[in-house]
């Protein structure tokens, strides 16, 4: 009775809605979110050195490698008295069009100075095309290595520094916290593996727990 077996299958699914045979993996998205995968590709940030200089040197390698041609870079010579970046040149214009970006991460791979990395932020719904083009001032991280939250960006239940950005970049930001180094999934965004925790550094779970009670960072508390 091959026809009737199908009826048994659907009926058992219905009966076992709460059981293992009928397990539903749907989550109630805006209220609940699923943990993001370790190498999730979200929107980009432009990072800075510990002395506050921009890492971008305006070399346009990211724009050259971009398969979607969504990056526009124009470099300019640094003013020797007031350099924006170490070296001769800096990124004078840096724009990413998120209507075109496919989040392939090739720009991150191409960047010789680790200036551009991807966060795991993905909830940005703009209502006009000019908002979709992120300019350099919008992409640059703050002193603490955090990306800026733009008006149309939704950051879910606040900002989870351990889950949403590169820990290495946050640790090496001008006012970065060294305890963020070496956390699993933080520093793997460049594609060459995970940096092991160095002497006395906390494990991932500890930092995550501490980050949720993080009060000395006023940006964090504002986002919560």
């Amino acid at each position, binding site marked *: 009775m091959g026809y009737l077996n199908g*009826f048994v299958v*659907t*009926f058992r*699914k219905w009966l076992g809605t709460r059981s293992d045979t*009928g397990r*539903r993996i749907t989550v109630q998205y805006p209220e609940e979110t699923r943990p993001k995968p370790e190498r999730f590709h979200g929107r980009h940030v432009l990072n800075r050195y510990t002395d506050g200089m921009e890492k971008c040197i305006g070399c346009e390698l990211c724009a050259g490698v971009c398969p979607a041609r969504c990056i526009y870079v124009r470099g300019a010579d640094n003013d020797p008295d007031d350099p924006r970046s170490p070296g001769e040149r800096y990124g004078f214009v840096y724009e990413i069009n998120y209507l075109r970006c496919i989040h392939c991460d090739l720009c991150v791979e191409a960047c010789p100075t680790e200036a551009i990395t991807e966060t795991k932020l993905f909830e940005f719904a703009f209502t006009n095309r000019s908002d979709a083009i992120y300019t350099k001032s919008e992409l640059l991280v703050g002193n603490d290595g955090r990306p800026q939250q733009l008006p149309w960006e939704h950051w879910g239940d606040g900002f989870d520094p351990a889950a949403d950005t590169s820990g290495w970049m946050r640790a090496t930001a001008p006012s970065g916290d060294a305890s963020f180094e070496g956390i699993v999934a933080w520093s793997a965004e460049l594609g060459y593996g995970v940096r092991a925790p160095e002497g006395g550094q906390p494990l991932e779970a500890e930092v995550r727990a501490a980050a949720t009670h993080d009060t000395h960072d006023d940006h964090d508390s504002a986002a919560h």
Partner: protein
Amino acid sequence: MDTLLTGDPMLSGGIGLTEILIVVLKVVVSFAALMVGVMLMVWFERKLIADMQNRIGPNRAGPFGLFQTLADGIKLFFKEDLQPERSDPFVFKLAPYLSLVPAFLVFTVIPIAGNFSNGGDGVVTLLGQETLMQVANPQMGILFVLAMSSIAVYGVMLAGWSSGSKYPLLGSVRASAQMVSYEAALGLSVASVLLLAGTLTTNGIVAEQSGWRWNIWMTLLVPFVVFVIAATAELNRPPFDLVEAEQELVGGFHTEYSSIRFALFFLAEFMNTVTMSAVIVTLFLGGPEGPIPSGAPGWVQDYLLPMTYFFGKLFIFLFIFVWFRATLPRFRYDQLMDLGWKFLIPLALGWFLILTSLKVAEDQGWNPVVAVLGAVAVVAVGAVLLRSSIRAASGAELEDVTVAASGGGES
């Protein structure tokens, strides 16, 4: 006019204000019940099929997503009403109503309450008048149901034809062929019921099943099975939803419809599901009949328990229709026609013959075993003839298309 009215004891005397009031009340109540029922049916179907497919289903609008249908309806109401340039404007506008109105009308002859147990005839006293708990009880009864389901074919057919577009046309051609074919099976299985009931009125059919003499086992199950399958095809529900086969025909007959006109088709489709379930309950499961304690107060005997039984049985069939949809993949068009013409119609006809022989033997005082054996012999001969003719026909077909070996063939 008189023969139309005599079905209901209330109308056999003069017609005054009370009678008109009662009729209006019944119409309003059944209309409202049907609309709310359809709303809940859409929600129920989406929730149930979601459960069967490991999904959650609508859960945003109202508690458990109960108002999802309402929200969809409001959305459809405010959408742009498009009309194709090459359509026939009058027929295009008429078609949704041709679908919707029969769906409503079928429900008017369904008895939804009244005490039918212990030989009761379902008469209740309402505002001092003896009446039946159905809007109308015409003498033609079940024929009216069949007629209405035939008229609904026009809605689908004209919608497809008047759209001036090819997918709706293909869908409506399928629809008319499918619905006309399955109406034959539907009618033949109803004939078995009518044979036992000896009346066409729905009230009479229900009253005849009183005392657990339900037609589902009095007709020995086969007409019931045929009826349910044919009804599913008649409703264009999966697995017989070739009429609006999304993968092949975009949306079938309602491809070109939008806004409120599409909502009317949608409404009619689900309303037909509800009313067809009600017809199945009436024909085969004794309608509102069920065990009723004789000591209970009048309103419990006449309204509460019968309505509970009726809607309980109705619910089972709604569940079954959704279950079909969740389980069975769609039939191919030739399989659909094969099932209808080569299996269901001969089966219903043969079974009707056997039941008839039993009935005649009973009436004439013949030995029922001999009569049934004779009928079975006739049916068997017919089945063999049918089978050999089908085989011969498909063999001839195969000779015609020797090259089409890769194209499938008889399944």
